[in-house]
């Protein structure tokens, strides 16, 4: 990326609204370009000024009318206004609300395969390279708005290799990378509030095997070219929890079997 391109994206970069690939390109450029770094600082200063300095609170009169404890909006004026509104404003309130993170499943599946393939081909398998969960877990701190569970599964034949940040379904997610023999297993996990737990479901997508489940508000996807039988032995997967535990276990599956 050159300075001209970076200038175009810098504002969205400051807002953390860019995808991961572009973010990394810009960071790379910023590391070597004093001019663009200065431009970013200046932009951040302006943002800070705007965010902190200028705000008009609702005047006391309006607050008294609406907001005071026990006060009520003067609805007696509502009927005539509502009538006028229905004539003039029928098109005003078209709120095309699409809930975030509601992805068509096939689209998400495709994204997961793409991220998996990209991680293998594009030399971007790992952002943090360590077999130690005590190194991998803290690495995500501050980079995500949640803390992914990172389990040591080496005694079950899955070696932790590391982790990286990825982008799925319109949000940054954690990808944990395990290895069994020569097979890489990408385990994506991200929170999805308000969704019920879901038993593991095997998938076969574009020649890869995947399994996904939901537990404790977290969405899990494991994908690999490992055969499906071995992949489903991944002890994170709640289907292989001991019989005494249910799918709706209070602790995230796999964690309780963590030897550490």
């Amino acid at each position: 990326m050159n300075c001209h391109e970076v200038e175009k994206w810098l504002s969205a970069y400051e807002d953390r609204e860019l995808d991961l690939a572009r973010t990394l390109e810009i960071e790379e450029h910023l590391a070597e370009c004093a001019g663009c770094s200065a431009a970013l600082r200046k932009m951040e200063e302006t943002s800070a000024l705007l965010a902190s300095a200028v705000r008009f609170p609702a005047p006391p009169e309006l607050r008294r009318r609406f907001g005071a404890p026990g006060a009520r909006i003067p609805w007696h004026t509502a009927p005539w206004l509502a009538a006028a509104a229905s004539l003039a404003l029928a098109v005003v309130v078209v709120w095309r609300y699409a809930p975030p993170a509601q992805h068509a499943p096939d689209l998400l599946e495709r994204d997961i395969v793409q991220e998996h393939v990209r991680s293998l081909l594009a030399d971007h398998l790992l952002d943090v390279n360590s077999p130690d969960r005590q190194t991998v877990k803290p690495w995500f701190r501050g980079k995500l708005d949640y803390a992914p569970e990172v389990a040591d599964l080496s005694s079950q034949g899955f070696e932790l290799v590391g982790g990286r940040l990825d982008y799925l379904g319109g949000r940054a997610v954690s990808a944990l990378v395990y290895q069994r023999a020569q097979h890489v297993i990408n385990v994506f996990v991200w929170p999805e509030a308000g969704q019920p737990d879901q038993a593991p479901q095997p998938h076969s997508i574009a020649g890869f095997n995947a399994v996904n489940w939901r537990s404790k508000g977290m969405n899990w996807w494991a994908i690999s070219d490992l055969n499906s039988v071995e992949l489903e032995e991944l002890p994170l997967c709640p289907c292989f929890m001991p019989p005494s535990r249910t799918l709706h276990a209070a602790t995230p599956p796999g964690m309780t079997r963590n030897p550490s």
Partner: protein
Amino acid sequence: MDPGELHLTEKERRARFEAAMLPHLDAAYNLARWLVGNPHDAEDAVQDAYLRALTYFDAFHGEDGRGWLFAIVRNACYQRLRKIRRSVAVFEPVESLEAAADHKPGPEALHLREADRQTIERGLECLPPEYREVLVLREMEGMSYKQIARIIEAPIGTVMSRLARGRRRLQEILTGETRKETV
């Protein structure tokens, strides 16, 4: 139908509405104040907006109440501006408003750090409303590009470029730069 039952339902509906919308009163007023430019019209626009929001509350499905309200406040503001014939500054294309940068503050604000509150207010007021509204929604309300896109009914790419240009323009106004960018 039992009138008492109907009354109760309406009362409940209002209670739900107030619980969902009154917490956003300050934010709604701030947005209106920046869009219409004076306290009196802002107050009227907010009251209009709340009454409209009540009328259409059944269309609200409980997600992102602030964004839903903001879309209504924004519409109420632009309608008010039309009514009071100040629409010139609002509905002309951005390109024809390059001259807005002429209202830049004096040389005392040559550096951003020295820009005081009044200078920033004046700078923001000088911006074309297309830029001003996205800056207010982003910088003061911390809304995501996706939320802003829904409020202003424009694609996310438009939100992105308006924010980029708006910030650049505001910096130029604040620091008295004369650099001319191509829009």
